[in-house]
């Protein structure tokens, strides 16, 4: 993809090195994809093309139910966080109050503290208040980091917003609520959506926090994958990787498109 016609200028060692690094990023994924079509169960050598692992994926009730759990957790956690995180970002941009820097620090904590520490703390907390663990405790724990990430993304956009927009709306007779919904919110929408995408991907990818807060009832996709791959290579996991990589590639491009549109809008201002 980086082969350009301007070979004279681009054939530097940096170009070759970059090409090598692109290979480093993509060859492992490519190898997974190739092996996912391999007939053999012990996928070290190629025994023939087959779609059997994709077929077994579709009939794997356990895997599909873990996918359902993951989507359920991610959609609810992101939905709640979109509202809470946006409110938090707007509140932080709009008001000064005592303890604000403390509040802001707390809002950024989930971005900084390693997952394992958050997971452990949440488990200890849930056990000590006697709260029984279920899929809902995973959701509650995911909201913590989802709302932080969304708030950060929205804050960045808020900081670049024209400060006179809301004033203009108020001068033209809008109530503060109208001004927010009709003027500010549409401006923030690209940021809210890309924050949501980021939070969704993080929630779908989370192994540790879900493992620690799941209890017996729930089993998310990363937990299921982890349980299977820690004991070695599984050909149906190769097939699953390909499906998930394609899905996340689509998400990535959706997010890029949103960012691009947000930029275009900003340039139009």
């Amino acid at each position: 993809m980086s082969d350009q016609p301007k070979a004279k200028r681009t054939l530097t060692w940096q170009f070759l090195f970059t090409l090598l690094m692109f290979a480093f990023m993509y060859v492992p994924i490519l190898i997974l994809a190739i092996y996912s079509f391999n007939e053999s169960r012990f996928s070290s050598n190629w025994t023939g093309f087959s779609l059997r692992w994709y077929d077994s994926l579709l009939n794997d009730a356990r895997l599909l139910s873990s996918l359902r759990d993951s989507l359920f957790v991610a959609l609810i956690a992101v939905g709640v966080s979109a509202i809470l995180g946006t409110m938090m970002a707007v509140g932080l941009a709009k008001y000064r109050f005592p303890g604000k820097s403390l509040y802001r620090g707390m809002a950024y904590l989930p971005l900084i503290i390693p997952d394992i520490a958050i997971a452990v703390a949440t488990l200890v907390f849930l056990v000590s208040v006697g709260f029984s663990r279920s899929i809902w405790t995973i959701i509650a724990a995911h909201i913590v980091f989802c709302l932080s990430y969304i708030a950060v993304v929205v804050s960045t956009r808020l900081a670049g917003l024209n400060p006179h927009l809301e004033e203009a709306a108020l001068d033209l007779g809008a109530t503060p609520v109208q001004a927010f919904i009709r003027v500010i919110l549409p401006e923030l929408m690209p940021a809210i959506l890309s924050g949501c995408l980021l939070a969704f991907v993080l929630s779908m990818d989370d192994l540790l926090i879900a493992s620690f807060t799941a209890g017996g009832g729930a089993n998310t996709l990363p937990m299921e994958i982890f349980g299977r791959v820690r004991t070695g290579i599984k050909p149906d996991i190769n097939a699953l990787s390909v499906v998930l990589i394609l899905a996340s590639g689509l998400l990535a491009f959706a997010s890029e498109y949103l960012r691009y549109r947000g930029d275009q809008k900003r340039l139009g201002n």
Partner: protein
Amino acid sequence: MSTSTQPPSPLADPSPAPSGLRRKLSKWIEPLTLLAPSGLWLLLLLVAPTLLILELSLIPGFRLGQATAPYGLGNYLQIFQPIYLPVIWRSLFFAIGSTLTTLLLGFPVAYWIALIAPQRWRNLLLVSFILPLWTSSLLRAYAWIAILRPTGVLNTVLGAIGLPGQDWLNREPAVFIGMAYSFLPYMVLILYASLEKLDKRLLEAAADLGATPQQAFWKVTIPQTFPGIAAGCLLVFISSLGDFVVPELLGGASSMTVSRLIYNQFLGATLNWGFGSSLSMVLILAVSLAIALLIKYGDKNGENLA
């Protein structure tokens, strides 16, 4: 995270309400509705739990359902025992090693994309490079099992060109490769943001004044992008220090790290919650220390963070 300078508020202050009482009410109701729900959520599910493990870490050998011992520093002292101290060093070694590796590998890539590649391709190139970040980190680590295991792709290739096979899986080289693979996109992303803002007139000025490209690179490019380098290193350092998936899947029994040890205290065989809590506190402390160092020496405006 710091007392960084507040950007001017893009939103107008709420318009004054007519009567005194209503003004007072609306003065507090709006910020409270906006900020209290998230604040309470974070207090309840992040701050309170963290304080709770701080307390547990001070109860030596706390196990669920057992009589609690009086407060003491036993859990922290346990970390310094000869079996656990190497775990701390190994985690630091992995974190520093993968930070330096991603910096060395990532800088030329970010440099080429930001400064040498044709303008209209830059965005697409960057997005393609960080695309793997969007996929499951578990599966990205898993991909390396297929490559590095004794009968895997690497040894097949090495065998075909007549080189001796390597047994890297479940040993330290596999963890380094896996971490570099996981965190290289972050490094490139942050270095790119910094290199893109580089004032190219400075490079021209340096050339006009007789500097060789190497001199210009070391005297202009590196100092100009230093905040980005520091922020990228911090991000990779923090992520790899707390990483569980890569050492667990690729490291085998010989590469015990702090996060794996913590995991074992809670979901593994040991179930020593007190010790696990003290390890978590040490991890949080190490991360905070790295951030404090960055704020003090690296990135004075904090503009590359958040």
